């Protein structure tokens, strides 16, 4: 009978690999998700029939599956497109939590002196799973704006985090070498939860996608470790696949932002001062703003307009209004393009998804490298709810948290229309000199309302 299970797990593993392969090309991405889901169904279907259930076991599995399926489906279906990143963080966190609990339950079975091959992966799974759970919850809270998105730092933070890590290693050795009693591995779990929080709070909201990707890879490894504890082939293979591909993806993401992973994770330390002085320097400077009519005329008589969409456009659901404006301009013979920063929105690829939803022709979507040289020939750069991705501080201010991030050269356009809800700094929590530039005109308001006003103004011009 175990032959059937093993074969089913093999099929599931193949489907996961094929699914990942399909997911990494645009053509097959959606099928890839189905392929992986089919693998999951097969792995579950092969596991369940051969188990010996206790009465209580059957009941809790039924209850857990029903609650989880309802929460998962409703959460994933109801969430707005803009809130998807934090939803991924949440789903990742609960997976890490589950991996840690599975390891705890296994350790309880083995008694005080479990064999090394069991206790080592269990300890690993408890620590990494708990870090992933707590870290993901903080990432969720930051993106959902339940807490501040700016880095939280305090003096001696690195020392505190170092001590936490050392305490975890100490407890881990105690569990492995001395005694696997509930007190020691529950303490281990608690410390790992604290470390998860401590690890993520100093990282700025704008870097959360990279952190979520890293924690995703961590959960994969925790699942693989739980697989070693349970001697379960499916968990080992699937968890490791996610751990490896997730690590590579994390690197690709930080590359897309032009940063090293170390800079993303530990960059906030020691930058409290710089950010504070920069904010103080911005006080009392004035900006220009203009009426919709003036801006409509400017746009209508331009030859080339580049729209720079950002998170503000996503929040206001303004992608349709943006396309309408582009259509009106194109009918007047204006060239319109969209400049998509790799991390526009809050996740790589986020903006492409939103604009595709609004039927923006794909040829108009230009990636950063394609479009950056065009800005100097553009009459207007129309920045809709973006901020950090056009902040010249990334080029010019070495102390800035976003220094070194590749940005869109919107500042080189002949005119810059900066559409924003308010003067609030962007997600990275720093001021943007571009707003105060001589070529820049601010146009305050909700992105959707503002764009609609511009559409009528262009029509009237």
């Amino acid at each position, binding site marked *: 009978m175990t032959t059937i299970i093993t074969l089913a797990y093999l099929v599931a593993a193949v489907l996961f690999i094929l699914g990942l392969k399909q997911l990494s090309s645009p053509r097959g991405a959606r099928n890839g998700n189905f392929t992986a889901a089919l693998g999951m169904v097969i792995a579950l279907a092969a596991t369940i029939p051969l188990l010996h259930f206790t009465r209580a076991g059957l009941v809790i599995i039924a209850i857990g599956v029903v609650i989880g399926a309802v929460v998962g489906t409703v959460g994933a279906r109801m969430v707005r497109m803009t809130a998807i990143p934090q939803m991924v963080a949440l789903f990742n966190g609960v997976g890490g939590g589950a*991996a840690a609990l599975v390891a705890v339950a296994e350790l309880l079975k083995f008694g005080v002196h479990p064999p090394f091959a069991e206790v080592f992966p269990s300890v690993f799974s408890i620590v990494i799973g708990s870090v992933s759970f707590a870290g993901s919850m903080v990432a969720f809270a930051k993106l959902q704006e339940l807490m501040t998105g700016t880095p939280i730092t305090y003096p001696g933070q690195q020392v505190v985090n170092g001590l936490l890590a050392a305490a975890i290693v100490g407890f881990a050795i105690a569990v492995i070498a001395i005694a696997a009693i509930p007190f020691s591995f529950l303490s281990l779990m608690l410390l790992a939860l604290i470390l998860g929080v401590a690890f993520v709070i100093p990282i700025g909201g704008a870097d959360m996608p990279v952190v979520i990707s890293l924690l995703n890879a961590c959960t994969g490894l925790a699942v*693989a470790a739980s697989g070693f504890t349970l001697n379960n082939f499916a968990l080992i293979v699937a968890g490791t696949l996610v751990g490896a591909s997730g690590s590579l993806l994390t690197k690709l993401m930080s590359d897309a932002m032009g940063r090293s992973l170390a800079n993303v994770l530990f960059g906030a330390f020691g930058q409290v001062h710089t950010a504070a002085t920069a904010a103080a320097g911005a006080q009392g400077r004035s900006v220009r703003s203009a009426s919709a009519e003036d801006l409509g005329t400017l746009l209508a008589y331009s030859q080339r307009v580049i729209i720079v969409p950002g998170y503000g456009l996503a929040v206001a659901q303004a992608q349709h209004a943006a396309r309408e404006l582009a259509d009106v301009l194109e009918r007047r013979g204006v060239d319109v393009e969209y400049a998509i920063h790799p991390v526009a929105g809050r996740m790589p*690829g986020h903006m492409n998804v939103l604009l595709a939803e609004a039927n923006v022709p794909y040829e108009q979507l230009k990636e950063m490298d394609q479009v950056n040289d065009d800005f100097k020939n553009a009459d207007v750069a129309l920045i809709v709810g973006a901020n950090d991705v056009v902040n010249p501080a990334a080029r010019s201010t070495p102390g800035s948290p976003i220094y070194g991030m590749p940005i869109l050269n919107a500042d080189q356009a002949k005119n810059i229309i900066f559409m924003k809800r308010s003067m609030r700094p962007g997600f990275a929590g720093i001021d943007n000199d571009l707003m105060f530039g001589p070529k820049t005109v601010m146009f305050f308001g909700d992105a959707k309302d503002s764009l609609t006003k511009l559409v009528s103004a262009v029509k009237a011009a």
Partner: protein
Amino acid sequence: MTNELLNELTFFVLAIFVGFEVISKVPTILHTPLMSGTNAIHGIILVGAILIAAGADSPVTIVLGLIAVTLATTNVVGGFVVTDRMLEMFKGRQPAKRPAEAPVPK
């Protein structure tokens, strides 16, 4: 070292290489869906959660099993559904074709 452990280590090491290899050429626009998809796959921990919950017989194991199964199911179901929602947007449009045919625009 037992044979079983050796087998497991073999799978582990091979899976690392496959994991790296399989996504090495992913375009930027698919980073988010791919992360979400891998997130759903580590929901396989549901198999582990069911294994430990099946034999639950004491208050502690019942509570642990219930929480583990609930969390793991949320991971699997939410993960796949949210990934599908993202990928829906790419369906039947030009973006679904172009990057595959012309990966290097210049």
